[in-house]
């Protein structure tokens, strides 16, 4: 199966990145200019969520006569905190696992480890030049760095 794609020319990544950043910055300044250089958060809709501040949050808490609803909200608060901690643990576990997996992969610039095993799916395509250089490394299992 012919898997080669036509050669296409493109702009450099650096040019795209720099121009994108400049474009975003210019847009932000233009919008700021258009809004009369307003930097006035007080003019925006806000809410006073605490009971002390007398926001609308205080409204339901003071007026609420159903203890079950208070419990429900306290319960979801607890669930949020517990799940948040659990999710953070999962982020760190996966971050760490990914780092270990990455250390087993062919590092950027490193030649393919098996001449016949150029795997082009999922990761970076292994160029034929890299395969030709023929680095017949031994079993790569457990080569965590």
């Amino acid at each position: 199966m012919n898997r080669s794609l036509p050669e296409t020319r493109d702009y450099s990544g650096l040019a795209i990145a720099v121009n994108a950043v400049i474009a975003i910055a210019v847009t932000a300044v233009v919008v700021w200019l258009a809004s009369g250089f307003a930097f006035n958060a007080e003019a925006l809709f806000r809410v006073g969520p605490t009971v002390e501040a007398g926001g609308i949050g205080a409204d339901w808490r003071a007026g609420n006569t159903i203890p079950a609803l208070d419990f429900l909200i306290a319960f979801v608060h607890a669930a949020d905190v517990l799940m948040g901690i659990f999710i953070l643990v999962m982020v760190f576990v996966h971050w760490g696992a990914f780092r270990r997996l990455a250390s087993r992969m062919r590092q950027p610039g490193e030649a393919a480890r098996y001449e016949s095993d150029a795997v082009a799916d999922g990761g970076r395509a292994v160029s034929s030049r890299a395969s030709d250089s023929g680095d017949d490394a031994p079993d790569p299992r457990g080569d965590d760095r």
Partner: protein
Amino acid sequence: MTNLDHGKFTGMTTTFHTLLALDVFILFFSGYGMMFNDELWWLVTLMGGNTGVTAVHRIAGLGLVALIVFWMLMMLTTSTGRSNFREILMGPDDIAAMIQDIKFVLGMADERHSNARQFAGYNSDEVPLLSYVGKGVVYIFSVELLLLTISGLLIWSKTGVMQYFATKTAAMAFVVFHGLLGVIMLMGVMFHIFEHGFHPAFYPVEVKAFIPRKLIPEEHADTDHDSTGISQLGLAPSWGWATNVMGVLTVIGIVSVLVGSIFDEGYPVPRELVVGGGPTDLLLTVGINIGILVLFIGMALQMYGNLLRVRWQKQLAEEARTTAATDGGQVNDH
């Protein structure tokens, strides 16, 4: 030799995943624009202020109801749906996979449990449709979306909720409940983006949810090998810093929305201006905006995933045409 020939979605699932993701992102942007309006005032302004943002939220909510109903029908009425449903049932292996993942990070295990693997490799038969995290995501998101939809519809119908709970203030409690409930999902989606965008073998996006099963050729080669074959893949030069940056952003985002949710539990959009209300903490404002940035990155990655599918389809079509045109002659290499 395709080593990713297991654990892929059907065409319908990939489309559904995209639509659900877009809808949920819009719900997050509008809903948390309201709940964290101190910190995300620009999102509220962007969506047309007080009236606009609630309208956007309700329209996206309608979309969510439609998607949920559609999905439930698909799971119940099709044999593929029913068999996929069996795939997500949790088992003792999934608990073992979570424990082994922690051991793997600590260097106490050499490999990830097969129920944790996203990358198939040579022992591809061992890789399930969904990892233990994938199953957890389906469970948690399903329960969350159901509760959010029910509470959301109750809030929408003010007279309906007051009929059950007698007072306006009690009805307000449902708004708070609804907002707080979504926080678990908000944090979960941030992790989901990190997990599926920054696996070193798939970076910058895992295509499982974008390129449907039928478009990926299945081959079972190289059965001699005993490893996952990950050592054959080349690491992208940008993976290291990109993953560290995204990891930091994800952690800051999760912590910030969690802390913010403890403060911001009032009725989201006030009828009148309340000056200086809410925590005006600069750190919290920056943190919650970083959380929203993580969601934006997720949305960009999912669009990129769809772009990959389009490119892949074009490539397959091109190959089919080239092969047909050159049958019996030279392969037209261009």
